[in-house]
């Protein structure tokens, strides 16, 4: 069942076409990754989904209801964080959640508020004012605000902004749990492509306001090729040897590490070559790179 249905959506700011004829569906219980470079129209689209920006043309349905006619009904079942975590500096984390719980028009218990603070790892700072928070903590509180009223649909625009690696991993697990354990539908945009790759069932890529790719994460990547990462004790020696072998055309130009983008049927031969050539190998990993795919198709689009 489609939770979000976007049809021929356009938004113009004067002569600038920020979003052009965008259509996509987000299914129930899915994590939907939304990718695009800065200024590609991601946030404009998300703001239109949240009724913050009026579309120039096109149609949006959420939970099967027209967003312009039924906005208030839809909003009860949605939670969102939009770009930056913007908070009231003079309110505490707990006061923020109490305030937005009240605004949700649902009965939210004190224990639910505690649970939400715990979910985002802020229970020990519940009584501190937002003005004392780091960017990462503000981001966590922003996510807590989006979740406090137990929405069915969660829209997260760049939720990992400002978070440290541990924080990013925590939020990734949280988003996965929201979909897998709680059955929520999550639309998440991020510039961290590897994060999206690890979470999303479905990915939409837009560029200069236009959809350039949409599909399940697995099939978006080129199935005929695999990205292999070779870790060695001596990269200089290993690179030199490989560059003289039959695998030389597949070596990617990367500053760090040795990456090869090779046809899948040649992986076995690569293994054999590494052994016979006695490369000082530590590990050989298969990498499916959304980043490569993303850069490839956006540059094609340019």
């Amino acid at each position, binding site marked *: 069942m489609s939770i979000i249905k976007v049809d021929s959506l356009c938004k113009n700011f004067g002569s600038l076409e920020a979003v052009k004829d965008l259509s996509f569906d987000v299914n129930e219980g899915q994590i939907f990754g939304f990718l695009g470079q800065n200024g590609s129209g991601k946030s404009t689209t998300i703001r239109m989904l949240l009724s913050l920006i009026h579309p120039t043309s096109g149609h949006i349905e959420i939970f099967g209801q027209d967003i312009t006619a039924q906005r208030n009904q839809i909003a009860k079942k949605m939670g*969102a964080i*939009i770009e930056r975590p913007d908070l009231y500096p003079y309110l505490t984390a707990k006061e923020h959640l109490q305030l937005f719980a009240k605004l949700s028009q649902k009965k939210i218990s004190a224990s639910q508020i505690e649970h939400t603070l715990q979910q985002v790892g802020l229970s020990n700072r519940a009584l501190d004012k937002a003005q004392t928070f780091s960017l990462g903590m503000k981001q966590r509180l922003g996510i807590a605000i989006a979740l406090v009223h137990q929405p069915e649909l969660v829209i997260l625009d760049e939720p990992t902004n400002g978070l440290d690696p541990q924080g990013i991993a925590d939020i990734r697990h949280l988003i996965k749990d929201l979909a897998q354990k709680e059955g929520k539908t999550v639309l998440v945009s991020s510039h961290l492509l590897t994060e999206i790759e690890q979470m999303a069932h479905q990915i939409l890529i837009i560029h200069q306001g236009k959809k350039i790719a949409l599909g399940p994460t697995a099939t978006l990547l080129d199935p005929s090729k695999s990205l292999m990462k070779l870790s060695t004790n001596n990269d200089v020696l290993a690179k030199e040897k490989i560059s003289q072998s039959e695998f030389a055309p597949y070596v990617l130009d990367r500053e760090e590490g040795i990456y090869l983008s090779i046809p899948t049927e040649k992986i076995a031969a690569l293994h054999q070559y590494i052994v016979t050539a006695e490369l000082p190998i530590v590990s050989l990993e298969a990498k499916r790179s959304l980043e490569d795919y993303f850069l490839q198709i956006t540059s094609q689009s340019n």
Partner: protein
Amino acid sequence: MWSIIQIELYKIYKRPRTYIAFGAIAALIWVIQMGLKIDGEAYAAFLMKDINNTLIVDGKVLNGYLICYILLQLLLVHVPLLVALIAADMLSGEANLGTLRLLFTTPYSRTQWVLAKFIAASIYTILLLIWLAALALFLSMYIFGTDDLFLMKSNYVVLIESQDVFWRYVGAFVFASFSLLTVTALGFLMSSLANNSIGPIVATISAIVFFTILSTLNIPLFNVVKPYLFTTHMNNWKEFFDIQVTENNEAITGSILNIQKIKTSLLVLSIHIVLFVGASVVIMKKKDVLS
């Protein structure tokens, strides 16, 4: 709707800026009251110096009622500037913080939000006025006592009997609430046009100063628009202190000289409030929230 008004009031209550106006009013009134308490007789003598030869004034001229009148004359010009600090920040301050988009994603319409915010700002304005009344009227009555109110106008004097004064202050404060709510609505309109806090506050204050100058200047060109400017009517609370007299020049207790002027002013101010708030609703409904 009531719950979002409560939330807006809660936010006003939690904001440190809220208390600046209350503090400023208290400090000003305290300074003036202390000055008059210490050196009031000299001040009263200065006021009366032109009429001492023609009139014998019996009783206590410098009483709580006169002090309140002096305070209102001084303060009701400046209180709008303090009101603008909060009212002109209600929408643009949220846009500046980025929290406006959080509010606009809740299950309340933009019209509800704008009206709730205006009602909350209006409650703040009324509370500020009650604070002003408590300090300027009741505290002055307590410190200086009460007696007949003796006012010197530009070319005549008014003497209002003690028991005929209090209700006039009630009327004056109710009238002043309309004046200040007009400023609140103007600040609100400016706030709907901007995404930062300072711009609308400065714009509101500038608009008040600009229109006050137009209202005061006696130039025929401006006389055409003067009756329609809110600033022309904001100070008409003073009309409550002009009384009718009999043929023998005796004051008629409970009378107001020009009640029609008060009614007209209240009507003009009310129209301005409705227009300013209505325009704010329309602007905010159409606005793309980009902040």
